[in-house]
C-alpha cells in the first residue's frame, strides 16, 4: 500500500492536508504545486507523476490530444467545451538515474480518478477564494467566525454542515444558529442608518452604561450608537432578535443579547473597497469606508479628486490635505456636510466637525489606534507569563502608554487568532514581519479585549521615512 492509496482512500485526511497547506501558508498560494501521483479513472492504468498547473471548467475539446478526443468520444462525453487540467508530467527516462523529462499535457477532467477530480476541484475552489480568505475578517471580537474552508460537497452522502452564527446572551449562555433579522438600525452622533446583515461581521449590544452598541462590518468598519432592530414582516417584531437553531426558531429581546458573531459569507466582501473608497476616522472613535460623492472632495471653493489625495486631516473645521505628490494645502470645507455612501450600504452626509482623518489611499486603512514605530523595540509588549496574550502594565515611556492597560488581552493579530503558546508567538512574529528587511508587512492589526465587553484595535505601522 503506498501513500497515494492512502490519499485516495482517506478523503478527510487529504482534504485536511490541502486545507492546512492553503490556510497556513496563505501567501504562498500561487507557489508551484508539488509533483504527485495521479490516477486514471481506469484502475488498469499506472499512476503518473505530475504537477497540477491549471484547471479550467472550459477547455476547448479540440485542444486535447487526439488520444483524449477519441477517449471522450468512446466515453460518450459530448460538448466542445469541457473541464480539463493542465499537468506537467514527469516522463521517466530509460535509466532510473537519469532525470525524468517533463512535458505539459492538457487532460480532460473526466479521465482522472474520482479522488483526483476532488483534489483538483478542492484546489481550484481554494485558489479562487485565496484573495477572499486573505481579506475576510476571520476573527472578530476575539472570536473565530464560522467559515467554509472546504469546497462544499457531499460527504458520505450528506450535505456539508451549514455555517452558523454565534449568539451570546447576557445570562452567559451561547446559542448557535442562523440569525434571521436582516436589518440593523444604528443612530450614531454623525447620522442614523440601517446596515444589512450581509455586511456585518459582529454586533455588540449595549457595551457601555450609556447603552451604546457597536456594529462591526465585514470590512472591519466600526459604527457605534444606539441600536434598534426594526420590525420586519414575517421575520421579527421590533427589538427582537430571531434566529434559527437546532431547536427551531427562537426569538430573544434585544436587551437580552450581548453579541452576535456572524458566519463568513461567500459574497460578503463583494463590491467593497473599490476605487474611490476612502477610509474615514471620526471624532467618536468610529472608522468607516465610504465613497465621496462623485469621487471629489469639495474643499476650499473647488473640488479635488480623491485619487490625487493621500489623506486629509481635520481639526477645528480646517482641513489639511496631503496630496500623493507630496503637496499640502490647508482648506476649509465648502459645505457643512460631506455627502458619502458607506461601502456597507447606506448613503448619508457627515458634518465636517465629526471628521478627524480621511485616508484616500486604498492601500492604507488603519483601524483603531494608529501607532507609528521606528523599530521592533518601539512596539514590543510585555506579557503576563502565566496568562498568554495578557498585557502587563505598560510603562510611561511605552508607545502603548495610555492605550493599553494591565490585563488587556490580545485576541487577534492580523485578523487571525494569535498563538502565544509557541516559542515564536504570533505577536513577535508579526512585529518581525513588520520590520522584515526583504518583504516587510505594510502594517500589523492587533485586536484587544478589555474586560468582558470592550474590544478595540491597534494598527502598527512603520514610521514614515523609516523604510527597512
Amino acid at each position: 500500500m503506498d501513500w497515494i492509496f492512502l490519499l485516495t482512500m482517506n478523503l478527510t485526511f487529504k482534504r485536511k492536508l490541502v486545507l492546512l497547506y492553503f490556510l497556513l501558508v496563505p501567501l504562498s498560494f500561487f507557489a508551484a504545486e508539488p509533483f504527485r501521483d495521479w490516477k486514471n479513472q481506469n484502475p488498469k492504468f499506472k499512476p503518473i507523476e505530475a504537477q497540477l498547473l491549471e484547471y479550467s471548467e472550459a477547455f476547448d475539446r479540440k485542444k486535447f490530444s487526439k488520444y483524449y478526443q477519441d477517449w471522450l468520444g468512446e466515453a460518450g462525453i459530448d460538448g466542445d467545451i469541457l473541464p480539463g487540467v493542465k499537468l506537467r508530467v514527469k516522463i521517466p527516462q530509460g535509466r532510473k538515474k537519469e532525470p525524468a523529462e517533463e512535458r505539459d499535457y492538457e487532460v480532460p477532467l473526466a479521465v482522472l480518478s474520482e479522488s483526483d477530480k476532488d483534489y483538483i476541484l478542492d484546489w481550484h475552489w481554494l485558489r479562487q477564494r485565496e484573495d477572499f480568505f486573505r481579506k475576510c475578517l476571520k476573527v472578530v471580537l476575539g472570536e473565530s467566525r464560522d467559515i467554509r474552508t472546504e469546497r462544499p460537497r457531499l460527504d458520505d452522502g450528506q450535505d456539508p454542515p451549514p455555517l452558523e452564527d454565534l449568539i451570546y446572551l447576557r445570562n452567559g449562555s451561547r446559542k448557535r444558529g442562523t440569525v434571521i433579522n436582516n436589518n440593523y438600525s444604528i443612530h450614531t452622533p454623525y447620522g442614523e442608518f440601517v446596515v444589512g446583515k450581509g455586511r456585518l461581521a459582529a454586533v455588540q449590544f449595549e457595551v457601555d452604561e450609556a447603552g451604546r452598541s457597536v456594529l462591526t462590518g465585514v470590512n472591519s468598519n466600526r459604527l457605534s450608537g444606539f441600536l434598534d432592530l426594526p420590525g420586519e414582516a414575517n421575520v421579527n417584531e421590533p427589538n427582537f432578535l430571531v434566529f434559527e437553531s437546532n431547536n427551531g426558531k427562537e426569538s430573544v429581546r434585544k436587551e437580552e443579547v450581548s453579541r452576535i458573531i456572524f458566519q463568513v459569507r461567500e459574497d460578503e466582501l463583494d463590491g467593497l473597497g473599490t476605487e474611490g473608497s476612502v477610509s474615514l476616522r471620526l471624532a467618536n472613535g468610529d472608522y468607516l469606508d465610504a465613497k465621496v460623492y462623485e469621487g471629489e472632495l469639495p474643499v476650499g471653493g473647488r473640488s479635488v479628486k480623491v485619487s490625487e489625495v493621500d489623506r486629509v486631516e481635520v481639526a477645528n473645521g480646517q482641513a489639511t490635505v496631503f496630496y500623493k505628490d507630496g503637496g499640502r494645502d490647508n482648506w476649509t470645507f465648502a459645505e457643512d456636510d460631506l455627502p458619502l455612501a458607506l461601502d456597507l450600504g447606506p448613503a448619508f452626509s457627515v458634518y465636517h466637525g465629526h471628521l478627524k482623518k480621511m485616508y484616500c489611499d486604498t492601500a492604507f486603512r488603519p483601524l483603531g489606534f494608529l501607532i507609528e514605530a521606528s523599530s521592533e523595540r518601539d512596539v514590543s509588549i510585555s506579557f503576563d507569563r502565566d496568562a498568554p496574550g495578557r498585557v502587563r502594565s505598560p510603562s510611561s515611556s511605552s508607545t502603548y502608554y495610555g492605550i493599553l492597560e494591565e490585563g488587556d488581552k490580545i485576541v487577534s493579530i492580523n485578523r487571525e487568532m494569535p498563538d502565544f503558546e509557541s516559542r515564536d508567538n504570533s505577536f513577535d512574529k508579526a512585529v518581525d514581519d513588520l520590520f522584515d528587511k526583504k518583504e516587510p508587512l505594510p502594517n500589523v492589526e492587533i485586536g484587544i479585549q478589555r474586560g468582558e465587553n470592550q474590544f478595540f484595535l491597534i494598527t502598527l505601522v512603520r514610521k514614515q521615512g523609516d523604510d527597512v
Partner: protein
Amino acid sequence: MNPSIFKMRLLSVLVFALPLFSVSGEEDFRQWRYFNDADMGEGKLLEYNTAYPLEDLTKEIQLTEDRIKWLQEQGQSGDFVRVVKLTLKVPPKPKEPDAKPDPKAEPELVDVTYPFTYFSSADQEYVMDWDWLRQREPFFKKCLHIVLGEERGIRKSRPEPEPNFDVIYLRDGSKKRGIVQNTSFSLHAKYGRFAVSRDKLSAVQFGDGKGGHDLLVGVNNNRLSGIIDLPADSGVGVTANHLVTTNESGQSETIRKEKLSRIIFRVRPNELTDLNLDGSALVRLKNGDAFDARVSGGEFKIGTRRIAAAQVSSVEVIEGRANLIMKSGGKEIGDFSEADLPMELALGPSINVYRAYVGQIYCDSNFRPVGKILTASEPRVLTLSFERDKPGVLRSVSRSSVYYEVLEKGDRIISIDGRIPDFDSKDTTYELILESLFEDNTATYFVLDVERDGLTFSVTVRANNG
C-alpha cells in the same frame, strides 16, 4: 417634603436669591405714607386685594362723594376698588376729650382697609412687590433655580423685567444669549425615542460628541440621556439639526447642533403648570437617568397580581426581580409580568421602559432622590472640609466619610437642594442642612449638586435615624 424643611429651603431662597422680602412669614411693622407724603403711621401689611367691593369699603371708612370722585379720577371706577389692609399702630385716645395724647402710652393696633391710591407711590410699589412675591412663592419653591451648576435666568422681583434670554454655550467656549426657537428636542435613549417640549426643559447638555451622553434636564430636574436630535420645525423656521435663536436685537441666528455645548433655559413663569405629576412616581434607571412618571394604569403587574401604585412606597429591582416595599410596611417580591413597563412622563411623552433597565421606583412623593443615594446615621460621617479661599471646594474626603470615593478633593458643591449655597456665613448652608437633618429633624434628605472637571453630578443624602 414636610413643611419645616420647606420653610428651611425657602429661607435659603430668601436669603440668597430674594433678599428683600420674607414672604412666608409675618410682615414687619414699617412706616407708611399717604399719596401726598403725609405720615400714615407705623403699620403692618396684611393683605392686598385688587377687587374689594366699594360698598363694603364705604362701611369701613368714610368715603365722601369727593373722595369717591377722586378715586374715579385715579382709575378706581366701578363697584370694586383696589385696597390694602394694614394693622396700624394708633395712639390711644385720651380719656378726657380735651386731654393731650400721651406719647409714652402703648399704641393700639387697629386693622384698616384703605384704597390703594391713598398710598404714596413708594408704598404702592412695596405692596405690589409683596403681592407679586406672595403669588409666586409656591413657584419659587418648586422651580429649578440651578441646573448643571448654572443659575437659570429668573425674574426675582416684580419691577424687574422678565429674563428674556436663554444662555447658549458653544463648544468653542463662547456664550450667546437669545431665545431658543426650537419647540422640541428629540431624544434617542436606550429605553426609547421621544421628544420633549422646550417649555418643559431647564437645560440641554450636548455630550462629548461620542453619542449617548447628551442630556435633557427637565424643569422638574428629571434627567434623560441619549442622543439628542433637533427635529425640523417649519413653523418657527428650524431645519433639522440646527438650533435657531433670536438675539437681543431681534435677529435670528442658526447654529449647528454639533457646535452646541449646552443650553440653560430661563425660568418661565408657567413652566411648572402643565407638569403631569398627579400620581407620579420617581423612576430611576440603572444608567443614571431619573424621571417622574405615572405607571400606566396606576398599578404594578407582578406575576399574576396587580398592585396599586398608591399602596407602594418604593420598588427596587434586584437581580431582575421587583422588590416592592409597601406603605403598610410589608414587602412583595416578584417578576414584572410584562417585558416593558408603560409609563407616562411628567414631562409629556409616554414610553415603554424595558424592565431590566429599572433600578428603583419611588412612589412616595416625599422622597425624590437625585444621583447616587448615600445614607448617614449621624452628622459626623457627613462632615466635609472646604478650602478656605474657595467656598464650596472640598479639601479632602476622609475614609470614614460616607462621601468617600463619591466626592473627591477639588469637587465643588454648587447647589444644595437646588439653591445656591452660602459658604461665607458662619453657619453655612451645609451646616444648616445637617442641622435640619439630625437636630431639628425637619428634613429627611438633601441633594447636593457637585461640579468636577466641568461636569456636574448629584448626590442625595438620606438620614437614617434608626
